[in-house]
């Protein structure tokens, strides 16, 4: 996939003017945050980059009525990423890499199997984070053994990425200590720094009755608020959702195992059954084109086969 093509899809700008959508644009023209036409073919792109977000792979899940290809979907996604014409700078997995189990050994085995499968990715840099299925039952012990730290930061081409753990406490709490760590990190950043937060659960109250929230998420948002250019990418809810808290945009990703219904649309939350007439419907991954100079992020949703 060329940079030219990457730019020609849904555009989202999490800066001040809110989210701007423009579908299937052609010839390298898009809309900027104010809605005016931008000629991307002539724009400077040397600092731009893109990364891929995969989420909620739930390796180990079994339920033929929900996903009869439970053992093949992640492998297809790996193949899809490897098939991208231009490889991303890096890949992020926003949690629930494995499906939960009470059996510690099975949990560890699932993590090893997951690692083995994603080791097939051509892109050498992969950033992992935990979901509650990976980390809530043992407060992240097995996860840390397999993948490393639960919260950390990294920098890439002018963007500061912050990985926040809102799952290893089974009560869906970030916690005082991590909040202090976050505040100390943010102190090192200028107020106009380009900041991307990666996390598993929504930091705002999307639908708390379905556990779609972080109990102290508002404290995280308060800490981020003085920074002008913050965008959050997360998982957990197994569907796209785009939300603004003030100037901070929050974008959730689809799952690679099963979709979940729209918030509050059914009495009880349960996976959306497999549609044999449209296999893998509701599942997918996404590419995110980062334009640090403009503090903008273009999201392109891809299906499991990468189309």
């Amino acid at each position, binding site marked *: 996939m060329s940079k030219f093509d990457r730019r020609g899809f849904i555009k989202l700008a999490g800066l001040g003017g809110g989210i701007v959508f423009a579908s299937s644009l052609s010839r390298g023209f898009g809309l900027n945050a104010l809605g005016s036409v931008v000629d991307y073919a002539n724009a400077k792109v040397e600092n731009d980059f893109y990364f891929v977000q995969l989420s909620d792979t739930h390796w180990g899940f079994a339920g033929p009525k929900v996903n009869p290809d439970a053992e093949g979907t992640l492998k297809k996604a790996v193949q899809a990423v490897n098939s991208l014409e231009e490889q991303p700078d890096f890949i992020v997995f926003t949690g629930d890499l494995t499906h*939960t189990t009470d059996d510690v050994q099975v949990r560890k085995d699932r993590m090893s199997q997951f690692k083995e499968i994603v080791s097939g990715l051509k892109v050498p840099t992969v950033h992992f984070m935990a979901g509650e299925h990976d980390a*809530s*039952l043992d407060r992240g012990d097995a996860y840390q053994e397999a993948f490393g730290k639960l919260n950390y930061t990294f920098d890439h081409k002018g963007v500061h990425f912050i990985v926040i753990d809102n799952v290893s406490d089974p*009560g*869906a709490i970030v916690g005082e200590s991590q909040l202090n760590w976050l505040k100390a990190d943010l102190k090192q950043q200028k107020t106009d720094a380009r900041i991307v937060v990666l996390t598993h659960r929504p930091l705002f109250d999307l639908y708390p*009755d*379905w*556990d779609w929230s972080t109990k102290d998420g508002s404290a995280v948002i308060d800490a981020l608020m003085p920074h002008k250019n913050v965008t959050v990418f997360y998982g957990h809810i197994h569907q796209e959702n785009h939300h603004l808290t003030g100037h901070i945009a929050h974008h959730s990703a689809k799952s690679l195992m099963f979709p979940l219904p729209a918030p509050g649309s059914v009495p*009880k939350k*349960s996976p959306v059954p497999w549609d044999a007439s449209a296999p893998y419907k509701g599942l997918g991954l996404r590419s995110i084109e980062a334009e640090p100079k403009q503090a903008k992020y273009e999201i392109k949703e891809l299906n499991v086969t990468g189309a």
Partner: protein
Amino acid sequence: MNHNKKRILLTGVLLVSAVVSGLLIYTRANAVPAERVIHITAKKFDFSPDSITLKKGEPVVFEISSADREHGFNLRAFGVRANISPGKVSRIRFTPDKTGKFTFSCDVFCGDGHEEMTGTVIVTE
């Protein structure tokens, strides 16, 4: 006992009776209604009972215990929640101030089935 003494004694008895009756009436009129206690057991992955009917304005205490591991109880519509630990009884006191059907759920991740660990509080007039 002469007539005067009898009259004084009778007056005294009547006065004491009046005071006691008054106190009883006052106490009844101002008494806090007794709390209704409801026992709830949490276990992977349900609550028992999972449907609870309450009366608006009637104070209630939920006494919640766990049969297996850590759980949470969250009834967001009334802003009440508690952590539920094995071997302990967690108490939640509240008085429903609105009628309707409200969901409560486990808000401490407890395993494969946690997402479906919910129940309903029905509040009637």
